[in-house]
C-alpha cells in the first residue's frame, strides 16, 4: 500500500524507481486500464490517456453541434416546412433572406447593434478597468457592482429596461425633470430610437464583462514598465498609450471576439424589450430565425438565415482574431 501514497502525493517528483515487493501489487493495479505494461519494462514509453477519454465529448459535440449544423445547411437548400413534401430549391431561401424586408432589416440591425455595442462596451469596460486599477477603499465593491448585470438573466434585464423606457417611465420623467423634455420620446416605440435604446441596454449589461477582462490584463502589465515610463516623465495619457495599451492587446482581441459572438446572436433582450418591433425595426437575425421557424413554420428559410448567421459569425470573428494576432505580433 505504500505505493498508493507515493502516487497520490505530488510532493515527490521523479521518484527513483524502487524495486520492492510492493511493485508487484501496483503493477497488478496498473494492469487494469488499457493493457498493462510488463513491470520489467521501465524504459519510458509514457502511455497517454486512452482515447476513451475523448470519445464522450466528441460524441456529444458531433451529435449536438456538427450534425445539426450540417442538417440545417441541407434544410436551407430545400423548402422543408414539416408539412408539404420537401424538395430542393437551391439558393431560393438565401435569395429571399437577402431581399425580404424583414430578414434584410434584421441583418442590418444585427450588424448595427454589434458595432454600436462593441465600441461602447469596450470603451466603458476599459475606462472602468483603468479607474479601478489601483487599490482604494471600496474598489472591490465597485467591481462587484459593475459586474453584476452580467450574471442577471438577459430576459430579466430586458424587461427591467422595458419598464425604464416606458413613455411615462423613469427615463422620460427624469428628462422632463431636468428640462430636457424635448429628448423624451417613446424609446421603444420609435423606429429610429428603439435599436439604439436596445444597444444601450446591452452596453449596460455587458460593460462589466469587458471591464473584468481588461482588469485582468492590466494586472499582468509589468509594473516596472509603468514605473519606468513614469520616471521617464510620461504623463498619464502617454503611459496609457505606449505602455498599457500595447500590453492589453490580447485582452482587446478577446473582448472584441466575445463581444461580436454575443452581439451577433442577440435574442433575449430584443424579445423582452420590443420583440422586434415596432414593425421590423429592431428585429435581429436571431429573432427572425425564431419567428420564421416557430411562428410561421418556415423552417427552411429559418435554416438559411441561421446558416447566414453562422457564416457571418465565423467570418467576422475569424478575421478579427487573425488580424489581431498579426497586430499583436508586431
Amino acid at each position, binding site marked *: 500500500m505504500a505505493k498508493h501514497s507515493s502516487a497520490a502525493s505530488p510532493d515527490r517528483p521523479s521518484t527513483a524507481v524502487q524495486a520492492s515487493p510492493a511493485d508487484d501489487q501496483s503493477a497488478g493495479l496498473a494492469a487494469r486500464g488499457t493493457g498493462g505494461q510488463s513491470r520489467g519494462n521501465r524504459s519510458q514509453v509514457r502511455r497517454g490517456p486512452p482515447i476513451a477519454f475523448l470519445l464522450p465529448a466528441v460524441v456529444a459535440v458531433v451529435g449536438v453541434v456538427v450534425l445539426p449544423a450540417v442538417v440545417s445547411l441541407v434544410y436551407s437548400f430545400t423548402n422543408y416546412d414539416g408539412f408539404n413534401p420537401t424538395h430542393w430549391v437551391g439558393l431560393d431561401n438565401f435569395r429571399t433572406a437577402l431581399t425580404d424586408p424583414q430578414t434584410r432589416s434584421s441583418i442590418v440591425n444585427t450588424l448595427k447593434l454589434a458595432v454600436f455595442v462593441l465600441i461602447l462596451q469596450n470603451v466603458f469596460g476599459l475606462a472602468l478597468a483603468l479607474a479601478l486599477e489601483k487599490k482604494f477603499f471600496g474598489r472591490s465593491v465597485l467591481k462587484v457592482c459593475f459586474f453584476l448585470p452580467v450574471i442577471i438573466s438577459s430576459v430579466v434585464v430586458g424587461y427591467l429596461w422595458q419598464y425604464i423606457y416606458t413613455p411615462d417611465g*423613469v427615463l422620460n420623467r427624469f428628462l422632463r425633470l431636468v428640462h430636457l423634455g424635448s429628448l423624451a420620446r417613446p424609446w421603444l416605440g420609435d423606429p429610429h430610437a428603439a435599436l439604439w435604446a436596445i444597444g444601450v441596454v446591452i452596453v449596460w449589461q455587458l460593460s462589466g464583462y469587458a471591464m473584468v477582462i481588461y482588469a485582468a490584463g492590466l494586472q499582468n502589465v509589468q509594473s516596472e514598465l509603468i514605473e519606468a515610463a513614469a520616471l521617464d516623465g510620461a504623463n498619464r495619457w502617454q503611459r496609457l498609450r505606449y505602455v498599457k495599451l500595447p500590453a492589453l492587446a490580447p485582452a482587446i482581441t478577446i473582448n472584441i471576439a466575445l463581444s461580436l459572438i454575443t452581439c451577433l446572436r442577440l435574442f433575449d433582450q430584443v424579445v423582452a424589450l420590443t420583440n422586434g418591433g415596432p414593425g421590423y425595426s429592431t428585429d435581429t437575425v436571431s429573432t427572425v430565425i425564431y419567428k420564421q421557424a416557430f411562428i410561421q413554420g418556415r423552417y427552411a428559410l429559418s435554416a438559411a438565415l441561421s446558416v447566414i448567421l453562422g457564416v457571418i459569425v465565423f467570418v467576422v470573428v475569424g478575421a478579427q482574431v487573425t488580424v489581431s494576432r498579426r497586430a499583436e505580433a508586431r
Partner: protein
Amino acid sequence: MTLTTQARRSRSQFPAPRFTVKPSTVLGRGSLIVVWLVFMLPIYFLVVVSLKTPSQTASHPFSPPIEPRVRNYRDALNASSGTGSASFVQAFFNSVIITVVSVLILVIVGAMAGYYLGRTSSRFSTAVYLSFVAGIVVPLQLVIIPIYRVMDRLGLDGSRTGVIILYVGFLMPFSVFLFTSFVRALPVDFEEAAMLDGCGPVRAFVSVALPLLRPIVGTVAVLDAIAVWNDFFGQLVLLSGSGKETLPITVFSFAGQYTARYDLLGAGLVITIVPILILYLLLQRRVIEGFSSGVRG
C-alpha cells in the same frame, strides 16, 4: 522575477497614506461614484417598482416606497401559477435540475477530453482540438431547428432531459477548450512520477491530475452554470408549453400576461434574480476570476 518583486514591493508604497488630497483624485473618485450611482439606478428602480402599487409608481416613480408593499411578491408568486407555464417556484426547480445535471456532465466529460487533448500531441489530437475551438463560435440558432425536430421525434420535446442533452453538447467545445488549455499548462512531472511508480494513465488522471485541476473545474462549472441558467432561446424552443418550463420562460410568459403591471412583473423579476444574486455575492471573487481567467487562457 526579482526585478518584478522589487518593483511590486516599491509599488505597494505608492498608495501610501497621503497627507494632502489632490483635487484630481477627488474629481476622479467623485466622477467614479457618480458613474456607479447611475449604473446602479436600474436595479434601484427595479426594487422600488416592485414594492409599490401602480398608482404610487405613476405619481412618484423615483422615490423609495413609503410603505413597502411586500404583498406584490406574494401576488406575483401566486399569479405565476396561472400563466399556463410553470410557476416561479416550479421553474426554479426545473432550472436547478437542468443546470446541475448539465454542469456535472460537462465538467466530467470535458475534463476527460481536455486531459486527453492536453496530454496527447499528435496530428489527430490537434485536429480534434481545433474542431472544438471552432465549435465555440457556432451559434445556437444554427443547430436548434434540427435538434428541435429530432427531440420531437424522439419524444424528448418538452423534457428536461432533452434540454440537458442540448447544453451538454453545445457547451462542450467551450468547456473542453478551457480544460485543454489548463492541462497543457500543467507540468507532466507528477503524472510521470505516478506512472513510473506503476500507475496506469487512468489512475494517473484520477489521483494525480484531477486534484490539480480543481481551480479550472471551478471556472468551467461557474461559466457553464451561468450560461445554462440564463439561456432563453434554447429553453424557449424546447420547453415552452411543456409544464416543465424554466425561469427565463416563466418570466417571459408572466411578462406577456401581466404587461404593464410593473408592480407584479418587478416582483417577479426580483424573485427570479435573488437566488443567483445571493450566489454571486457569496462567491464574488470566484465568479469574477472564473470569467476573467477562463477567457484569458
